[in-house]
């Protein structure tokens, strides 16, 4: 296991950042997924959408250059790149539901071997609401769940989500600091593994059935 949470998150962000091709439209969720923008390989231009109404989102503004009218879906101040544009929420979710967004990357409370995920409510405890997550995972062409492999020692990747779902059978890929899984019609497939981990360690920390790909690779980060 990787004890350093910041290192773990960096590994996840760097691995996911390698997934995108030139000029693809990508929506990154709040929290861990936001880090991915800092790790896009050189030579690749990724176009970031944020569901509050911007395409071509750039980095945080330089001091003195802040514009309170340009924010991301987390409410943080951002910038627009020269090819950027703004639109209303109806257009934003038309883009999202209409399969115009190539990748959405988001965190989850639970994700399971059927490709279902839970991310918006812990009944009786915490109810942040679904925001745009339900539309994003239903609408984006590819759904990547980015997650620490365990939380307080408990697996996050399960046979079946116990919490109320965000959506059913929508996740294409799960990336943790230890492993990369593909969700296939036949179930979970372990396709990459951290160079410092082992299949046994992953089995011990995953509460889901998975096959080990014949082509198992080392995670490049």
């Amino acid at each position: 296991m990787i004890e350093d949470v910041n290192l773990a998150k960096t590994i996840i962000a760097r691995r996911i950042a390698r997934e995108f091709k030139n000029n693809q439209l990508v929506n990154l969720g709040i929290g861990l997924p936001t880090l991915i923008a800092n790790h896009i390989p050189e030579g690749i231009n990724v176009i970031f959408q944020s569901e509050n109404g911007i395409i071509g989102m750039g980095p945080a503004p330089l001091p003195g250059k802040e514009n309170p009218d340009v924010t991301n879906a987390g409410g943080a101040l951002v910038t627009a790149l020269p090819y950027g544009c703004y639109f209303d929420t109806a257009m934003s979710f038309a883009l999202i539901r209409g399969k115009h967004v190539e990748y959405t990357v988001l965190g989850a409370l639970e994700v399971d071997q059927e490709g279902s995920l839970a991310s918006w409510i812990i009944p009786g405890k915490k109810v942040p609401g679904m925001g745009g997550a339900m539309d994003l995972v239903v609408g984006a062409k590819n759904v990547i769940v980015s997650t620490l492999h365990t939380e307080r020692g408990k697996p996050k990747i399960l046979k079946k989500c116990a919490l109320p779902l965000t959506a059913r059978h929508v996740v294409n890929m799960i990336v943790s600091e230890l492993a990369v899984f593909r969700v296939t019609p036949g179930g979970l497939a372990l396709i990459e593994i951290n160079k410092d981990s082992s299949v046994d360690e992953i089995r011990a920390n995953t509460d889901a059935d998975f096959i080990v790909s014949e082509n198992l690779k080392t995670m490049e980060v």
Partner: protein
Amino acid sequence: MFHKIISRKDFADLIKDNMTIMIGGFLGCGTPETLVDVILEKGSKNLTIICNDTSFTDKGLGRLIAAKQVARVITSHIGTNAETGKQMVDGTLKVDLVPQGTLVERIRCAGAGLGGVLTPTGVGTMVEEGKQKLTVEGIDYLLELPLRAELALIGGSIVDKAGNVVYNGTTRNFNPIMAMAADVVVVEAQKLVEIGEIQPELVMTPSPLVTHIFAPAKS
């Protein structure tokens, strides 16, 4: 020719207890803060608020919840305002959570005279509950119904005296959609300009949708 500009007092007179009000903005960005100030001052009670999120306890429409003026909120996200969750658990605030894309389409339906839309969002989740499900070409959809308000409060960046509105940056969000779906629409103008100063292609809310313009005095 157009006489749409209203005073702070005239706006205050529009607000009634038990009213259903849409308020634009996304985590406060694009929310008409001064109009919210007036509702806070007036202290109107039992409001139903339709909004993307409940913002923060000290920003945007989140302040109305902190001041316990809201009986019900129809929204997609409440995680940034601790008061919303607390009052929901206490049973003093009813919270209807709606996926963001569904929320905006429901408002658009009301504004566009449509009876509803079929969306794949929410199928197989708690969002299904109580809703009609239709299958079209083998895919399941939820039938989502129109959502209207008595009053819409809109945050406009540039507004001309006819009522044409431009929204800068990401302040646009729900504002132009809500401006179509209420009986009375009040725009708070960050910058009020003369007719003819806005490029006609740039108008995002056409003037006939705007009932009143409120232009806060510059401090």
